[in-house]
């Protein structure tokens, strides 16, 4: 099933972009001459949001907690991002009981390709650096066809991890200051502490530690605090 997830994520990404295009029904971007607006190094808004995927899974699954808060500060065409999340999860099978809990933090910069959208809607592309710390424990039974069976418990704590992400997605105004957004993530270059006791199976915020590249997809609901009532300035007529 895993092999389909990458394709599914890409599909979602295209759907997101298509979804954003629907939202642009009443905006004619061709009429906007972006060259007349210069870079403003003034924070325009602060937006804070929560990942709905993790929230739905937390509410619907037993022994699973995944909560992620995201925030951005809009400065001209850029978003300075801070994201913080927690994961606590128990994976129980016939022969294993694996528990992971940890936190992660992502920091990065997104570039908004929609420079002069009156509502501040965004179609963005960016990079992030992420780091996390997690604890792992495993109770397992293993039966070797030649040498017999073993039952054992292993535990490792404070495993540090870091990785990079390339992100793209959209942020669209729903109503008032409530926003929706999708973020597709390509996660790569994972490095984590190694131990001979137990190989971490899942890294909070990254996913399966053995995957050199991971796709991720988040759905956010945001609340935006504008620093100014003024909407994005549209150019004057030529």
């Amino acid at each position: 099933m895993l092999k389909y997830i990458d394709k599914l994520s890409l599909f979602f990404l295209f759907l997101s972009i298509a979804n954003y295009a629907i939202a642009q029904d009443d905006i004619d971007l061709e009429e906007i001459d972006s060259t007349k607006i210069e870079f403003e190094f003034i924070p325009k808004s602060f937006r804070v949001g929560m990942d709905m995927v993790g929230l739905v899974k937390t509410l619907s699954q037993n022994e699973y907690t995944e909560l992620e808060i995201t925030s951005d500060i809009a400065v001209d065409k850029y978003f300075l991002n801070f994201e913080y999340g927690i994961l606590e999860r128990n994976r129980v099978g016939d022969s294993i009981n694996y528990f992971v809990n940890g936190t992660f933090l992502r920091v990065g910069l997104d570039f908004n390709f929609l420079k002069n959208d009156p509502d501040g809607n965004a179609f963005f592309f960016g990079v992030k650096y992420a780091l996390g710390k997690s604890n792992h424990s495993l109770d397992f039974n293993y039966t070797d066809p030649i040498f017999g069976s073993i039952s054992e418990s292993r535990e490792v704590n404070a495993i540090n991890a870091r990785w990079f992400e390339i992100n793209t997605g959209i942020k669209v105004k729903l109503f008032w200051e409530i926003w929706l957004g999708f973020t597709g993530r390509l996660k790569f270059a994972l490095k984590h502490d190694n131990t001979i006791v137990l190989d971490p199976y899942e890294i909070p915020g990254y996913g399966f530690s053995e995957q050199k590249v991971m796709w991720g997809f988040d759905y956010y609901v945001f609340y935006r605090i504008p620093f100014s009532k003024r909407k994005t300035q549209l150019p004057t007529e030529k």
Partner: protein
Amino acid sequence: MKKKQLIIFFAILFIGVACIDESDCSYETTREVKFSFVDSGTLQTDTLQIDSIVIVGFDSAYYLNSTRSKISLPINPIVNETSYFFNLVVGEIDFSIVLGYEIMPRVLSEECGIEPEIKQLYVISHDVDSVVVVNNTFNEEVETNVKVYR
């Protein structure tokens, strides 16, 4: 925002939640140690006429009664060492090798359980000229883990 956007949003959300957690089973390592035999005088490949091999922890012996310059033998993933007793044909000197290692459980998935990975292989004891660990990786591609000089 229009109604159809909300429908698309929630459709994607629930499909995404349903699909993200699946994982595959994949076994990456073997639990076999590959011995190669070398003549310590000439440093050329040594050929042994092996009658049988006894592995501690394994109830029955491997009865080979054949000539080998390489052999793959199971390594015990339950304990941290495995002893091998090589019984050669009459006229040749029997010998033994004890290997030590660490066992790291690698989680495959809830359904598949764990795979014990053999790590940090080393030689505990032997009664031949020399035994050298040349490769610590256990998979199908590796040709030799341990060279036995006799």
